[in-house]
């Protein structure tokens, strides 16, 4: 399963990015700079998907007490944080030539993405400071759920806040009108990066489960079975 996901994800990503970077026509307004979209949009999309996945897993873990759900959350968190960081980084690299600024406090998407990064970091900080693993699992799952309730609130509060603001400085991305030759590579890189994320997640979850169950019988059998 993992190699299939990994390889197909990598292929789609390569297809998307090569097509996006070299073959898609340049945007009439933004020129070639818009091409960062092929990294930016997938990363931003995954940063949100990873959090919803973690929230879903936290829900399952707290209600049905399924152990593997905790392992999934633990493995997803650093990945999600990295993709959030990547989305912010590429976003500000993109913003520099387009909007003339690295960072714009007035834009709701930037600020809510930043707050999401803080939620990821808070989660990891909480985890890292509780030595007892079952306790850390349950407490951090509660935190994830609280954060999940708050994400829409944070998002809309930032959005309403700017609409309260006199809207003159509100910046819009130059809006590449998505034509087919631009769209397909974008879709490919979104799906490709998601598969890539999925495969990384599975690898990490596998390692996490092995680490957690290191004293259990089936792992001993598995390893010895391989050797014999």
């Amino acid at each position, binding site marked *: 399963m993992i190699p299939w996901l990994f390889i197909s994800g990598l292929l789609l990503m390569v297809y998307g990015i090569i097509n996006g970077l070299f073959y898609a026509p340049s945007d009439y307004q933004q020129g070639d700079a818009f091409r960062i979209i092929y990294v930016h949009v997938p990363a931003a999309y995954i940063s949100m998907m990873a959090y919803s996945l973690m929230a879903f897993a936290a829900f399952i873990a707290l209600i049905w007490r399924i152990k593997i759900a905790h392992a999934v959350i633990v493995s997803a968190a650093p990945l999600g944080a990295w993709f959030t960081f990547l989305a912010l980084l590429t976003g500000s690299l993109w913003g520099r030539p387009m909007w003339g600024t690295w960072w714009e406090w007035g834009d709701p998407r930037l600020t809510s993405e930043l707050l999401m990064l803080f939620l990821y970091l808070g989660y990891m900080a909480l985890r890292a400071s509780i030595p007892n693993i079952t*306790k850390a699992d349950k407490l951090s799952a509660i935190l994830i759920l*609280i954060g999940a309730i708050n994400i829409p609130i944070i998002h809309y509060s930032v959005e309403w806040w700017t609409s309260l603001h006199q809207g003159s400085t509100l910046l819009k991305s130059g809006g590449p009108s998505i034509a087919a030759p631009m769209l397909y590579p974008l879709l490919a890189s979104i799906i490709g990066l998601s598969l890539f994320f999925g495969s990384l997640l599975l690898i990490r979850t596998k390692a996490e489960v092995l680490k957690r169950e290191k004293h259990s019988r089936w792992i001993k059998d598995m390893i010895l079975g391989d050797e014999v």
Partner: protein
Amino acid sequence: MPKKLSLIAGFMAMFRRDLLQYIKSPSQLLNPLIFFIMITAAFPFAVNAEKAQLVQIGPGIIWVMAILSYLLTLHHLYLDDAEDGCLDYIILSPQPLPLLVLAKICAHWISSGLPLIIISPIIGIIYQMQVDTILIMIATLFFGTFALSLVGSIGASLTISINNSNILVSLLVLPIMMPVLIFGARTIELYQSGATTMSGLYFIGAYCMFALSFSPFASAAALRIGAD
């Protein structure tokens, strides 16, 4: 057989006991307040203290510093009880734990939030606010500090089993509190510039009610797990 206390009697007993504890150690209450006054008074020294500028930065600084000094009080919420063992009895008591948690939160708000609101007009005067602006500020702080007590209770209960958890609590609570900060500060600012302010107040009130609906349950769950 011991007499069974009604829910309201249980709530009141917890509330009164916590309030007494706070009153018995006034320095715990006063230090954050003094910190709040000193740090807000430090800003006009540090930046060029022209009147127009103070009016401009005042609401934001007051709100950020109110949250900051409030975060310093959060560890009294459960940590003192956890250290002397009272918390275990509270958890084991026949009263529903979310109710007792709510009583503790209310006592904490009265002993930390209310004094902050009472001294806030002084800070408002330092920042050259008009009397009606100060009233608006008090209204936002009223709901805002209560929401802070509620959300902070989640952060404090998640970290009771950790030593030196003060910074960690701030890391967990700050991103969740961001909507209140945004609207609190913006409402005062908008009022100063002559716009309508009710929408911001409604938002903080709604956030407060929302936090009221889930915070006692989340805190109670976290306390149970933490005390295992």
